[in-house]
């Protein structure tokens, strides 16, 4: 096994399981649609709430996607092989998360203008929202993957992952929605983006090592 062949296999598996990505996307859209129907469909409510709605839906969709990241590998034994293959486990995990991030976030960004239209977002704040997604979502993946690795040996681990990881998502949601609100008010929002970027980078550095510890403890 080499890093290159690992990445190739990862993308092949993702491609074979494109239905899962599609499901996550549909789940995301349905959660977003619940808000106008369930609370208020007027633009007075939706415009200020849009960024919060989209971010909460994103967080849930990401957690669903991340939770299944190691499940298959654990069951078919390839997680064990990653541990013993002699390559650096944190680096393999990093590559795996990046592949998953591309597969989930890129489609999300593509449908974002559509959702922005549905929630009456102006194009300027839509841009801000997309940038926060691009900059902030890596930290969602990197933190979520720790929880996924810890609970991979539990059959019904999804709820536990939510309980463990959702508190850590709070700052990301707060910074992003504040950024979009600042954009809606015509204020500069680069400070919030910097915070998001810092969180993503910090989790990028730390999470692979934590996840590697968790994976090693889980495969025994």
């Amino acid at each position, binding site marked *: 096994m*080499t890093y290159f*062949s690992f990445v190739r296999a990862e993308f*092949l598996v993702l491609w074979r399981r494109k239905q899962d990505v599609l499901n996550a996307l549909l789940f995301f859209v349905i959660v977003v649609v619940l808000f106008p129907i369930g609370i208020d469909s007027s633009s007075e409510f939706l415009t200020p709430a849009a960024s919060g709605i989209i971010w909460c839906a994103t967080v849930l969709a990401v957690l669903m996607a991340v939770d299944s990241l190691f499940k298959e*590998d654990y069951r078919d*034994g390839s997680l064990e092989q990653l541990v013993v293959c002699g390559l650096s486990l944190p680096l393999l995990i990093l590559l795996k998360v990046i592949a998953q991030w591309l597969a989930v976030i890129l489609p999300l960004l593509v449908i974002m203008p559509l959702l922005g239209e549905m929630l009456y977002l102006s194009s300027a704040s839509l841009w801000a929202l997309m940038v926060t997604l691009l900059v902030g979502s890596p930290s969602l993946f990197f933190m979520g993957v720790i929880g996924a690795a810890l609970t991979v040996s539990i059959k019904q681990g999804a709820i536990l992952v939510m309980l463990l990881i959702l508190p850590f998502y709070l700052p990301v949601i707060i910074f992003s929605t504040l950024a979009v609100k600042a954009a809606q008010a015509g204020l500069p929002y680069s400070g919030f983006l910097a915070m998001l970027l810092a969180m993503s980078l910090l989790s990028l550095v730390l999470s692979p090592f934590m996840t590697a510890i968790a994976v090693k403890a889980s495969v025994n």
Partner: protein
Amino acid sequence: MHSFASLTVSDLWIERAERDLCKGLSFSVQSGDVVRILGENGAGKSSLLKVIVGILSPLQGQIVYSGEDVTVDRRFLQQDVIYLGHSSGIKPQLTVIENLRWYCPDASPSALHEVLESLELIDHIDVPVKKLSAGQARRVALSRLWLGKKTLWLLDEPFASLDVRGVELLEACIRQHASVGGLVLLTTHQDLPSLSTRDVALLS
């Protein structure tokens, strides 16, 4: 093919789920050895292999591979090992050839073709593994032995779910590997008359 290699395990203590599996186990394996690990169910045969490959950590003891102490950092050993556990590590969504390209990216197309031919998998080369039978999936996992040029083989019940023909092929493969200086550690309840094995017994 291989330079001289050896694996020495000394005073190994393994504990799992509050049970002592090994108490001060010591043995040594050299190039050309085929070692069968014997023991009752639950005696810790699989755990021993997992400890050697680095999935589990021993309570205490020392593991030396080819002169290098790998007790703490198993990296040196892992670069030269093929480990096959209970679940084979083959991804069911990928086809036979994709799985092999993943594990053995250096194998030449002709070598791949030859191995798949001899394992009677050549007709299923582009079939996702989840559509194959258990025995066929096992053969896919075992084909790594032919393709990956590694010295140390740690095989956990390699003969499980193989038919007579498969067992013959695998035995031949192990014999060939030992004759060129490879090391094989395996757990099995099967007698292997065609292989000259040494036994390491785990007492429970």
